[in-house]
């Protein structure tokens, strides 16, 4: 049983479409009876919904509806809440969510929320806030934590930007964040980036604008956030109410039984997958981050049969979360970081 983003609106629109057929203006009638095939249709007919992506490419899915997913964070009553990350972020006054971001990428990247000034915003210059996440199991950079990720960003900053503040650890809402500032002089725009790690995901808050006072104010507002105890620029490995996250746990030495998915269609896309293994070693949750539906079905069916050695921490078996990449990595090989995630 798989969960699909946006499926309900599609069914709703389809239902309305099927119900609400109406007459339409006539085209010049053909000289003969319409031939068979889907290229020819008599009138009247209903309308397809607009503004809905009905034909999906690679998209996320999960094996169950109960387990929270990173991409399910939402803004409700001016608070961004993400159950998977255990994060709440009250939106700054006079800011609002813009539009949904794209689906998670095949490298484990997420656009969690995009914020813009609301109509009540009074300052003379505006700004933009991007909240994103990178699954560190599939990260493109040689980084093992949020601080290393930010340092990588600084070292690979495009030449048209200038560093204003090198990556530094700061405390926000009682947790450590890596902060990195840079500027574009031609655009007179500043980027203030704050990153922390939760469940082996680097969570980034990117504040962009000309008004540095406004940007500092936005950072100050971050202190109203709540985060899980594990959150930190160099920590964030799960635990507590969440599974412990361990990179590369799906190795032969840890697997007691596996069956591989057999695909019907040959594809070449990377398919990053996160699984949660229970205390007995059974796979209790599969999150296919990006895959075509046929791939997701086969991978999920297979992974739910896998059996692992229970993961033991401090002498106790605990739930563990790990990542597996199916398919191609698209030629991008992660370089081992100085700080291993396990």
């Amino acid at each position: 049983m798989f969960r699909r983003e946006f499926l309900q609106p599609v069914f709703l629109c389809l239902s309305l479409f099927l119900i609400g057929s109406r007459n339409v203006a006539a085209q010049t009638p053909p000289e003969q009876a319409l031939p068979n095939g889907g290229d020819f249709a008599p009138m009247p007919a209903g309308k397809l919904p607009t503004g809905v992506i009905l034909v999906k490419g690679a998209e996320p899915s999960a094996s169950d509806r109960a387990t929270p997913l990173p991409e399910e964070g939402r803004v409700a009553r001016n608070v961004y809440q993400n159950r998977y990350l255990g994060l709440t972020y009250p939106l700054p006054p006079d800011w609002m969510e813009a539009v949904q971001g794209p689906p998670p990428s095949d490298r484990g990247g997420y656009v969690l929320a995009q914020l813009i000034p609301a109509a009540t915003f009074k300052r003379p210059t505006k700004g933009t806030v991007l909240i994103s996440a990178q699954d560190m199991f599939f990260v493109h950079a040689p980084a093992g934590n949020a601080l290393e990720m930010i340092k990588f960003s600084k070292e690979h900053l495009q030449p048209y930007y200038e560093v204003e503040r090198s990556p530094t650890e700061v405390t926000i809402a009682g947790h450590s964040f890596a902060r990195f500032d840079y500027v574009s002089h031609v655009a007179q725009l500043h980027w203030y980036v704050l990153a922390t790690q939760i469940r082996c995901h680097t969570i980034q808050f990117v504040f962009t604008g000309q008004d540095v006072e406004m940007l500092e104010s936005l950072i100050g507002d971050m202190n109203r956030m709540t985060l899980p105890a594990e959150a930190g620029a160099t920590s964030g490995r799960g635990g507590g109410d969440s599974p412990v996250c361990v990179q590369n746990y799906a190795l032969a030495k840890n697997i007691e039984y596996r069956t591989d998915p057999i695909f019907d269609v040959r594809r070449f896309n990377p398919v990053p997958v996160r699984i949660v293994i229970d205390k007995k070693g059974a796979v209790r949750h599969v999150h296919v981050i990006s895959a075509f539906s046929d791939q997701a079905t086969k991978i999920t069916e297979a992974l739910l049969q896998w059996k692992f050695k229970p993961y033991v921490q401090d002498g106790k078996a605990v739930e563990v979360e790990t990542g597996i990449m199916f398919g191609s990595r698209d030629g991008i090989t992660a370089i081992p970081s100085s700080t291993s995630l396990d």
Partner: protein
Amino acid sequence: MTRRVVPLALLLCLTFSLQDFAQTDPGVRGGAPGAGQPLASVAANNPANILNFFNAGKDDFQEIDSVSGTVAGEEGSGLGPRYNSRSCVACHAQPAVGGTAPAVNPEIADATADGARNTIPSFITVNGPVREARFPFFFTNGVPDVNRPNGGVEDLYTITGRIDAGSCTISQPSFATAVATNNVIFRIPTPTFGSGLIENIEESTLLANAAANLNNNFGVTGTFNREGNTGTITRFGWKAQNKSLEIFAGEAYLVEMGVANELFTQERPLPGEGMNQGLPAACKINPTPEDITHFDGVSEGVMSDTVAFAMFMRLLAPPTPSTTTPGGATSIANGRNLFSAVGCATCHTPTIRTTASKFTPSLSNANANLFSDLEIHHMGTELADNVSQGGAGGDEFRTAPLWGAGQRIFFLHDGRTRNLRNAILAHNSPGSEANTSSFIFFNNLSAAQQQDVLNFLRSL
């Protein structure tokens, strides 16, 4: 579970209502076409005889096809039985041979040329863009069936009634119904200038560029479309669905003009027609393939039309940008820097290096200033066409190369706008990777800065 978001129209209203709209698209850059010439080494005939191949390809590219090849002035043969237009140059004309949709739509005249009896669909207008049409879904009992994705090209016209069509009698697709039910999308021709450079970029170079671009704070990711058998990166077409220029040419020759060729060897029915009885025998007039190698030819005369088209496109020089028009050198330079700073260059990579080429020196180890990463990206609900091609889903498109944008009339895959500012605005919608960059462009840049970016784009 659905996400609560502000409706797009309200959002755009709220977001941009206070913007200064003084900034405008300068429009199509005037003056001589900055494109259409052969690559420098081709013009220098290096290697020997290559210029003849270029010119022969250009001649074929401009040849008008009829069904029989016996109609005066239409010496090419193999047209139809279904087609969108009658020559390559009809659609690839702006600002020069090899380009994109011209100011006057040739598909108006194509409808009735040589006695053809076609109804011109409502979306084809004399001053509108050249368009091909696709039905995202098949019809079932008169309604689009979302459980039966289609996405194939529905050719506008048939040869029925033409003086050289014999007894072929077939109908046009149900365009009026498709329009009335929102079950039609459009594509305009992609310009082909500089495409030999695009063809000659190593996959490792593209992958390295993609990896470097992942280090961005705009929420941009992207991926590559890949060929189904070899798994190699594909790069031509609106969804990067075609591997090579020869495939691109062969498919277009069949789909747009109805000419079966050595790459696509049979006449093409419509997608639904093909799943049923196919084309009537009376409409399969010529032996196939209709376009073949000329065994009696010498040198460039040996090439099939398909190979000639590909060779012409491959050897076309990239567009030459202006350093001063529009807006002056300072504005253009400033716009270029702003374009990068606000994140546009994350996808619209300004320059990618080609590898060594066996064809001609100008293709070798050259800078392709294409302003594209050749990746496909989610572009959101506003631009989604619900057509899947290869690994590209309904809202994924190749980053459109921007070289030559200064002299293009129509923008976006369906040619919906002539206005660059509107084209940028269309990057912003639910599900788009370009939202953050777009917000920064409209929210955080001054009107003068936005104008500089528009001037820069029209300088290309």
